[in-house]
């Protein structure tokens, strides 16, 4: 693995001379081990706020406001070998496929996707695809049990998102 400082130096060289992608983006990974995917019926938790607004402003305070600290919710068994992951989608009617790299993890819809991972085995970067919605990239953590709702956006809702730029948006 090469840290970005090295990547930047090389990037400057490459950008100036060869026009190639800098290696700061060249991060390696490995094949995933077998992953049991167990969809179980459950009610979806409420979606966390409209994404167009930075959700959970805790910590992003104004000058002068010393941060208010809140301890993390304690785990029942912080030394467990595995952690439990639960993924929901909103709207629940969206027929979604969850990808982990090249691997299809399963379908997501009215039923959440539930699986286990070895504790501290690194984050799981997922992509959720659903017809009529923009692709959604998110990350699941394995240093604790994790539960997440993915709120999908239709192309016409993209204008509400931070960073939206009409001119460069590909047709969907």
């Amino acid at each position, binding site marked *: 693995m090469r840290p970005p400082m090295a990547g930047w130096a*090389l990037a400057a060289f490459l950008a100036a001379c060869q026009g190639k992608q800098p290696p700061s983006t060249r991060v390696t990974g490995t094949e995933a081990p077998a992953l049991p995917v167990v969809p179980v019926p459950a009610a979806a938790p409420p979606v966390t706020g409209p994404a167009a607004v930075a959700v959970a402003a805790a910590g992003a305070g104004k000058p002068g406001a*010393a941060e208010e600290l809140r301890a993390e919710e304690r785990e029942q068994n912080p030394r467990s070998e595995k952690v439990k992951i639960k993924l929901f989608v909103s709207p629940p009617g969206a027929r979604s496929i969850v990808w982990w790299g090249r691997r299809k993890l399963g379908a997501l819809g009215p039923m959440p996707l539930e699986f286990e991972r070895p504790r501290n085995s690194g984050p799981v970067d997922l992509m959720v695809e659903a017809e009529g919605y923009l692709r959604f990239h998110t990350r699941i953590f394995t240093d604790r049990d994790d539960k997440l709702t993915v709120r999908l956006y239709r192309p016409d809702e993209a204008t509400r998102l931070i960073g939206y730029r009409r001119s460069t948006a590909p047709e969907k």
Partner: protein
Amino acid sequence: MSNDGPCRGVVALVGCAWVALACDRREPAPSPPPGTSPGEPSLPRKSASTKPPAPPKPDPDALPPAVDLPPERRAIQIVNGEERVVDADAARARGLTIVDLSDDWAPFIFQDAVAADGAILLNRYRAVFVGLATDRSDGDGQPLSPGDKNFLELYGIPPSLSVLRERFVTDAARTCEQGADIGKLLAVDGLDTWGATTEKKELAKGRQRGERIEQARDKAGLATLDELAAAEPRFAKDIKAHLRFVAERAAFTEVEKRLACEGLMDPAKHKPDVYDTPMRLAMLDFQQKNVLMEQGDIGRTTLEALARPILANDFAALRRGLAERAAHAGGFVEDGSASLAARAGKPPAYKNATGERVPVPDLVGAATEAVLARLGLVSPEDAVAFFARHPKQDFRWLKVAVRLPDLPEYYGPHMDLAGEIDRGDIWYDFPYNAKGERVPQPRRRYPSFTLYVKWRGERVPLLRWRTTIGGWRAELAADGEEYFRYKDSDVGPRVWRHIVAAPVWIPPLSSPLGSMVKTKLVNGANVRITNYDEVGPGYLSAYGLVAGIHVEMRKRGGDATYFDNGIRTHGSFDYMSLRGRFSHGCHRLFNNLAVRLYSFVLKHRKARTLGPMALNFRRTFWHEGEVFDMRLPTRGFYFELDPPLPVETLEGEIKGAVKQPIAGYVNKPGVTYTSHAPPAVGAGPESKAGGGGEAP
């Protein structure tokens, strides 16, 4: 290209023992291990000799060999040249310190803790730190690809001893170094390097010049170029340039040979005599591996490191690694940097019980030497022998029992510590004139961080390191345009109340979104993912591996309230910025030194471990037609100092005409703005750390 080594000139106030150790400036251990003659430090210990063995020197710290101990109670010692396993508990009872050499080691600030109610407070970054140090995983905690290495010492993560073992074992078997021509490597002060297109032109130009001169020499009927230069002075300049070119190309060939020999470059993928991508990557690896701050440039420091035997560089890495272990085991922070900084003045000293002035010792250096001596490590050959007798699995438990230097009198469970940041020379003036030309703003004094202990009515400096302060930076404003803004570092008394291990930085909305997405190989597919590098937690976080939060303490009656203006003294991956660049207002330190500093503070001040603090931040954003989610469940692992530790930022010396920082955005020269006037500036604490644009 810079030839300034990290230990030269004023920049030497970077003054870290870490860098100093890299310069190999230390003398051999004052008390070499028994059996080693001071005049023959590198002789193998078991060499055949006709002389009768010298009687063993008395070793008051030697413990009797112990057998059948569980791993947690085992430590080793070299006694009279022989290694033995001793009882770690007995060693502690004797006043010795157990220095952890195991692969599972992590600095104090990354240790798990137990809450008052007995619950475990997990320090989540610990597993990642250990994975990085042992070359088992990447910054995300995911397994490294076979053959990949983490060279992260410059980023605050020293390689574990099993990683160093692999280096020694592999490098000791190499024979390719015999073909190296050190004279050619050191015949130049540095090599000019260029991008691919320019390199082609420059090399062609150099060769054509050589042919031209040779033709002139032939034509003049002279034997040497020196004769030509004397006979026809108009060629003198070209001849000088040509000779340098020839020397540089010869050195370049030696660099290629060395990188290939060291296993960092595959010659089959490299085009000879060209500084191509495989060679540049190999050079970056070499520099990261040997803590050389030249970033692909081939300056004198790099050439000198290339000229050293590979095992000598490995030994320097081992020394640096043991320095971290020793400093943390002893709870030391004095590294000689305060003396180095005071070279022109009086070396720092403290008053002892009898009123004598005693110099502040270099405890990190002395502890390192003590560990090396107790392990019998004087030379690279000793290290090869050490690693030969310890297979990789030994580093699951290996520890050494050693007597570390005596603590100075000012040490105690709650030391009267205080931090001070001197901003050095300050320029508030806008750095461009009306024509849009850059205006020089020279600085003689650079910002420094000093940790003091108050002792017997005096402030005694324990360390002095280079740091950063804010300055003019480019920033994306709310109108989507980029402006310049002076990002000031607060002046005045503040306190550190909270120290955060593996802190998380929330990028302000002004952060460019392009850098928030990167490509990563995930399960065999190159996919775009949210880039958490700068956000953390991790060694690349804008707040580094650890941060102390500057807050203004206001007291009303008996109650104190705290105000945060976003300033932190934190570790930084951007080690080059510590050589004179500006931050967004925070005070950066090298990551390993920040880790050492805060571990020291927590060991020598009254503090509570708060553990992992929740953040539950989430930001969803659009990038090139897709939606990306940034999730930050945690702020980091918190400690609370009680009472807080005072830290004051001095104003420094204001240069130039402007005596107050310019508030608000200033248009960048040469940019046409669509807005009539710049918008109001953002003011979140996060704007004082990373993100945003580069300095003008």
